């Protein structure tokens, strides 16, 4: 598009006026300065290595410094620095293979079992390095629970699904106490009313959305501090998705939640902060509203607005 749509008006004269009489009032020069300082436009970003936005915060629950992950020769995560706050939902977004799930799995050492996977750098949970030698991963995974993409209830009763964790971690001392934990976990997961009369039925017999809420109940039954969610809604219909999102919003008051999602609308809906990954690098972190209205990095902008070709 060009200017010549208005040739019937004297654009030459007009240009002279616009350019010639430079706006000089103090207000205008202040405004000009302010606009100049807005750096979001046209910066050479493709070469940039540094994460843009606010990746560090005060009193983080989890802090990652210089985290690299390699699968054999292949780098999956490159020099990631990121803080995760208390009582916040942080969403990881990015194209497939960008490393978001890999980093998520590092947070409770789920990558340990993968052959050839090497994690370097430092990941601290409440100021304790979770990759220190001699750390027992079982209590770590109780502290940092995980919910997967596909609901994966145990082929046991609904009750046993939730009771299993507290039992093996020895969190309860009596049958009554265990029943109470099961009930309150199911309640907090918003499933109690739907299953209270069928606790002895198989968990696998529930609908997809119910199964996912059962998995969330199972996760929160062991009193975690952090809940990791790897695309928890991608196998669910919109109604079940809405229920899980509502649940995430409620759980935020008690837990730190990290969610990997392919749905940018979901990230926009449930998270307070958003991290955008691209080919193993953390490109941008910021509060969700600004990431979705005014992303700082062109790659983020192109991804969230659907411009990757």
């Amino acid at each position, binding site marked *: 598009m060009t200017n010549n749509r208005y040739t019937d008006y004297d654009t030459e004269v007009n240009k002279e006026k616009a350019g010639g009489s430079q706006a000089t009032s103090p207000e205008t020069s202040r405004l000009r300065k302010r606009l100049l300082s807005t750096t979001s436009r046209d910066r050479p970003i493709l070469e940039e290595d540094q994460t843009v936005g606010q990746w560090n915060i005060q009193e983080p629950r989890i802090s990652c410094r210089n985290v690299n992950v390699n699968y054999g020769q292949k780098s999956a995560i490159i020099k990631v620095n990121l803080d995760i706050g208390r009582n916040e939902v942080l969403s990881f977004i990015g194209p497939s293979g960008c490393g978001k799930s890999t980093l998520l799995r590092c947070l409770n050492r789920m990558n340990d079992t993968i052959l050839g996977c090497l994690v370097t750098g430092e990941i601290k949970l409440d100021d304790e390095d979770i990759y220190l030698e001699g750390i027992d991963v079982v209590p770590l995974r109780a502290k940092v629970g995980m919910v997967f993409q596909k609901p994966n209830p145990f082929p046991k009763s609904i009750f046993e699904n939730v009771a299993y964790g507290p039992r093996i971690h020895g969190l309860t001392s009596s049958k009554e106490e265990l029943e109470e934990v099961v009930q309150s976990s199911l309640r907090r997961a918003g499933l109690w009313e739907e299953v209270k009369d069928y606790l002895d039925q198989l968990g696998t017999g529930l609908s997809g959305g119910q199964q996912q809420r059962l998995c969330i109940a199972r996760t929160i039954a062991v009193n975690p501090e952090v809940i990791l969610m790897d695309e928890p809604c991608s196998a669910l219909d919109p109604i079940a998705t809405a229920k899980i999102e509502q649940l995430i919003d409620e759980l935020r008051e008690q837990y730190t939640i990290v969610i990997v999602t392919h749905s940018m609308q979901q990230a926009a809906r449930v998270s307070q902060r958003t991290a955008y990954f691209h080919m193993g690098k953390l490109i941008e972190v910021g509060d969700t509203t600004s990431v979705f209205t005014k992303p700082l990095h062109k790659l983020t902008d192109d991804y969230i607005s659907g411009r990757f*070709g």
Partner: protein
Amino acid sequence: MLNDVSSNENHTFKRYDGELDHLRFIVLEMGGLVIKQLADSLSAFKTRNPELAKKVIALDNEVDRLEVQSDEEIAKIIAKRSPVSSDLRLVMAVSKSVSDLERIGDEAVRIAGLAIQLFGGEVSEPNHQMLRDISRIGEMAMTGLRNAVEIFDVWDEEKALHVIENHRQMEEEFQADLRHLLTYVLEDYRNIGFAISVVLVIKSLERIGHHAQNLAEYVIYQVYGEDIRSQQP
């Protein structure tokens, strides 16, 4: 390494680009129409031509129709595409711009109405001197509006700043004109009817300058993601 995925200015879903372009086009079309309305209403004053003024009024239907059309398109895009980032800012800017453009059209109609009132009948010959104020502030309104519409088409920071500065000057010009017109009234109180009409015209022109400033602010928001309205007096 980051270059491996190609990114470009266009959306993967091509029809989305078409829809956003269409929005932009509506703003430019409305912009072209209200520029014509303003130019004609000013020239109706200059040439004392009530027929031309009637054309300005007739054109207003088209402006209104475009505003409605733009609202429909915007609702459609929000429902279908959930625009984010610069797309979202474009949609917001368009949505606000069309209502300012529509009001500019209304002000031009008001000016045209006054032209008909003054030159349509067999009333006494108006005072030439007093019309001079109209043409000066009218020129400023015209420049501001043209620049505001042009930056929507092709971004130009200097022009945008100029639109904002221009309105500041128009406000001063308006005050000066008021004092100036008052002297004619003091000279001969029979001038008062005509003076009031001229005041209404220059007030409308000042409002047009203000709407043009709003338009420039929306474009700045679209480009930078910065809302600068709080900075303005």
